[in-house]
């Protein structure tokens, strides 16, 4: 029987999801730091290896997932995530615990995602945004928890209003969404606690 072929997930689910998690933990606890997630397999287009690995490591049946049109439209990618993660795929961004954006230019504003509530700020979305490139020696100046003095982060191929959204998101603290940028096999995180200056 010929059907759609679903690409394999993590080669060693236990060890690989642990190392991917430590990578994203490092990135989240040191905002702006670029972490290289090594040894990842291929991912179905348009997912980058890092974005796919983040989903495989963190997303499951407990976490509704929102996919942008680029991912949802790429049949292989949506099936891949549905099969390996087993998560409900939701139609509206505000219902998602995790969101994957492959076409950053067309993404909805960050305020479309769930920022949590004042009593439960942890119940907020984590938004994985695929971008063209990341650099930590130029770009915006970051400060806040996890940053010794100042960090820099440049995001290539970011939505035009990204940094305004990020500033507004920080203004909601302790509510707000948390962002993980993914470029190829590299990630950088921007939790809601980070202050951004141009």
């Amino acid at each position, binding site marked *: 029987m010929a059907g759609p072929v679903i690409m394999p997930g993590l080669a060693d689910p236990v060890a690989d*999801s642990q190392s991917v998690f430590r990578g994203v933990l490092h990135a989240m*606890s040191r905002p702006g730091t670029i972490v290289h997630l090594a040894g990842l397999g291929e991912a179905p287009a348009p997912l980058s290896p890092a974005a796919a690995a983040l989903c495989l490591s963190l997303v499951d049946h407990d976490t509704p997932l929102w996919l942008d049109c680029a991912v949802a439209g790429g049949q292989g990618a949506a099936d891949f995530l549905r099969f390996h993660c087993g998560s409900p795929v939701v139609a509206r961004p505000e219902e998602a615990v995790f969101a994957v954006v492959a076409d950053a230019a067309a993404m909805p504003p960050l305020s479309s995602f769930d920022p949590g509530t004042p009593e439960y700020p942890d119940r907020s979305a984590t938004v994985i945004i695929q971008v063209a490139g990341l650099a930590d020696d130029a770009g915006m100046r970051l400060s806040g928890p996890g940053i010794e003095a100042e960090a820099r982060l440049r995001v290539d191929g970011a939505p035009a209003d990204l940094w305004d959204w990020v500033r507004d998101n920080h203004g909601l603290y302790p509510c707000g969404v948390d962002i993980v940028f993914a470029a190829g096999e590299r990630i950088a995180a921007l939790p809601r*606690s980070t202050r951004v200056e141009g």
Partner: protein
Amino acid sequence: MRGYNFAYLDEQTKRMIRRAILKAVAVPGYQVPFGSREMPLPFGWGTGGIQVTASIIGADDVLKVIDQGADDTTNAVSIRRFFALTTGVRTTEETAEASIIQTRHRIPEKPLTADQILVYQVPIPEPLRWLEARETETRKMHALAEYGVMHVKLYEDIATHGRIATSYNYPVLVNERHVMAPSPIPKFDNPKMDHMPALQLFGAGREKRIYAVPPYTDVKSLDFEDYPFEKQTWEHACALCGSRDSYLDEVVTDDRGGRMFVCSDTDYCAERRDAGHVGTGAPVTYGADAAE
């Protein structure tokens, strides 16, 4: 170990805890509820710390476990063996060698580095719990940053005792926003939390909460301008290594008032002795009996 997943917990549980840890890191000092599991030891024996460690540990990690600063106490030995058995990772007693340090009630004397993660075992994660018993209320107080009741408590300490009498689990303000229980570490250790290069994770198994302090984060011990925070000091040096700047345990040596003051951090003390530092080796004595 046959029959068990790596690090004991199943993968779905690890994912749930990992998600809680990431949210905890994103909101420093805020307590994230999580689905704490039954562990093969009772709540109160470090199940929160164990679940956090089990969710972050990998085959390349080197684990150190301390209980009140000591590597050789029952709780520390049991937890170290548990992870040696369920993960096969290398364990150590040397602070500098460890990539993950799980602790009960102390922060090591040797400054931690950016490559290390400190995992605290926490009995009562809610700093406001003894002041307000209802979770719905304390949650609202954190949401509104309404911490007046904590300052009243510290003020009443001063009114009653002439000083802030809290000596362990001394409340801190994290990232200028959340009041947090640092777990029952002595207040001597509080200043080490401020802008620590290592990531600090806190797990409370029975109370089902995880919280975190990312590296280089403001952690300020609550105090008043005219009654500033002070850490403990001792008249004595460590009887074994002569250290005057470490946290000392008082050990009763006889029934005639004999006392010995020794470092609570066993690795720190041993390293100093190896380097040639020596203390008096003798107990100090107090009381009438001692004069005989």
